[in-house]
């Protein structure tokens, strides 16, 4: 009881902080210095129509690298915590087979979803979406396979390969920016091209493809481990 009162008191306290915060908020009427700079120069400097992509991949590319490493670390941790050794696997477990419809849908949908995912991150510099969204879509495709066939054995070496190669490529392209252009992750190692076309914004789409592949591989990995891990130890 005392604890409940304390919690209420604390919530009231946090509420007070938020109330003050809310009071201090004023709907912005103009862009901040930073945002204005991006709006004015983003297209010119980076060559991307989608300014969010320009920021995520180039201006604040380092954040994205960190973010990719978070997923990477998470996948690594989950896999070393949950991965069962093959011999411990419960062979006798009866798995309900998925319905026919799901199976058929999977066969048709999976390639389509993967294509959509790839489309999303290839066009990340032009339209909404990009590496993360595309990667998530690809992971959903993998997920679908699991739903249809719970016994499906995710080929970890392929996923690991994609994950590693795209990760290394991300870093290498970034380092190329350091050598050939203004700094780490500078996209101007390639020409900026014509604004609004697929082959524009320098290395931005390339980086975004790697991000997409990497995120897709990492998310698939996480989903895969969580899906595959057999009955937990009793």
């Amino acid at each position, binding site marked *: 009881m005392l604890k*409940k009162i304390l*919690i209420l008191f*604390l*919530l009231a306290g*946090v*509420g007070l902080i*938020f109330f003050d*915060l*809310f009071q201090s*908020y004023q*709907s*912005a*009427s*103009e*862009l*901040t210095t*930073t*945002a*204005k700079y*991006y*709006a*004015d120069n*983003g*297209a*010119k400097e980076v060559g991307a*129509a*989608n*300014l*969010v992509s*320009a*920021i*995520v991949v180039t201006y*604040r590319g380092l*954040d*994205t690298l*960190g*973010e990719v490493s*978070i*997923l990477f*670390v*998470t996948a690594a*941790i*989950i896999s070393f*915590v*949950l991965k069962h050794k093959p011999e411990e696997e419960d062979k006798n477990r009866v798995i309900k087979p998925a319905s026919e419809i799901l199976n058929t849908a999977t066969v048709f949908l999976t390639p389509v979803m993967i294509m959509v995912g790839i489309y999303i991150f290839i066009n990340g510099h*032009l*339209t*909404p979406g990009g590496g*993360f969204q595309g990667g998530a879509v690809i992971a959903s495709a993998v997920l679908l396979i699991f739903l249809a066939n719970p016994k499906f054995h995710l080929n970890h070496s392929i996923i690991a390969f994609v994950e590693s190669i795209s990760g290394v490529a991300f870093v290498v392209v970034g380092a190329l920016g350091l050598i050939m252009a203004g700094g780490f992750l500078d996209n101007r190692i390639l020409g900026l091209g014509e*604004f*609004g076309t697929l082959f524009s914004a320098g290395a931005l789409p390339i980086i975004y493809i790697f991000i997409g592949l990497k*995120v897709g591989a990492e*998310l698939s990995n*996480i989903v895969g481990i*969580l899906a595959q891990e057999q009955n*937990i*130890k009793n």
Partner: protein
Amino acid sequence: MEYIILITGLALILMGLYGIMYIKNIFRIVIAFALFDTGINIVMVTIGYLRNGMAPILDKMPTEGTTPAIVDPVPQALVLTSIVIGLGVSALMLTYVLKLYEDKKSLDINSFKDLKW
């Protein structure tokens, strides 16, 4: 509109905090945490909102001296990062919950008090 969304976001954060502090089921604490995260993301995007601003996707190269009428892209970029991090943290927490459950066969938060003092 943005004020209402801001309130929604802040309220979700508070709900999340309430859940984290009050609920005994550790699985549901992770759910509360997801709410907390969603609330924060909503607040962040709201801050970047500009009345009558368009989405920060340009259809043409802006001409010199005119600033396109877009909303602030920076918070959006930050929230992208934040969402992905949130997923990582949730997945990790769930893994922990799984292992904790495996160990104690319970989801009650009070059964995980092996470390104290």
